């Protein structure tokens, strides 16, 4: 398994509170991604990073921000959590160096519940 960890694995919070999810990798991959997974929607891209301090928006970026100050860490922040952000969040990494050039390796996920 690719060396990807996510923390916390589970979190329950209240509407309006800030939340930060962390993705940590030990593979030295350049690209990192945050997805959310909801029933009926599959996985949808929130934000991604193509290097330290280089990030861009994905399909569902509203209400989320990200930061990447080190290669190994990619943080996802919900500035003021809402119930619609209740979801399972997955981090993924990629380096475009393998035979499967666009293959992304996924972390174990974080289940976030916003009450």
């Amino acid at each position, binding site marked *: 398994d690719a060396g990807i960890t996510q923390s916390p694995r589970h979190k329950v919070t209240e509407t309006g509170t800030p939340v930060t999810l962390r993705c940590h990798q030990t593979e030295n991959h350049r*690209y990192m*991604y945050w*997805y959310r997974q909801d029933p*009926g*929607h*599959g*996985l*949808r*891209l929130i934000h*991604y990073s*193509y290097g330290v301090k280089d990030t*861009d928006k*994905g*399909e569902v970026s509203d209400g989320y921000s990200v930061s990447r100050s080190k290669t190994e860490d990619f943080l996802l922040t919900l500035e003021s959590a809402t119930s619609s952000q209740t979801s399972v969040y*997955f981090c*993924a990494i*990629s380096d*475009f160096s393998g035979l*499967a*050039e*666009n*293959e*992304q*390796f*996924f*972390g*174990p*996920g974080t289940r976030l519940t916003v009450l």
Partner: protein
Amino acid sequence: GESVGLHLPTLSVQEGDNSIINCAYSNSASDYFIWYKQESGKGPQFIIDIRSNMDKRQGQRVTVLLNKTVKHLSLQIAATQPGDSAVYFCAVGGGADGLTFGKGTHLIIQP
């Protein structure tokens, strides 16, 4: 942009039979296609991928077929086993800006 469609949310097959899971995509310029398997409570795991310059690729018990004319992708699993029970996602992409996923097909194995 790209959209990826689901043909069947659930597929039930007998153990030992072959399974075929289908996917459709919208962007004819897409050049990379990948299938993931997701077991309950886990992140998606890579199964097999294919580039647009191919129409078939085989792995261990799995085959991916790509029909660019009708923008259709399929995953075939031979001799389905209980451990194949999972949700299968197709995903489409061509660059570093992430993949577009389909909604997934839940494969159920009947004993």
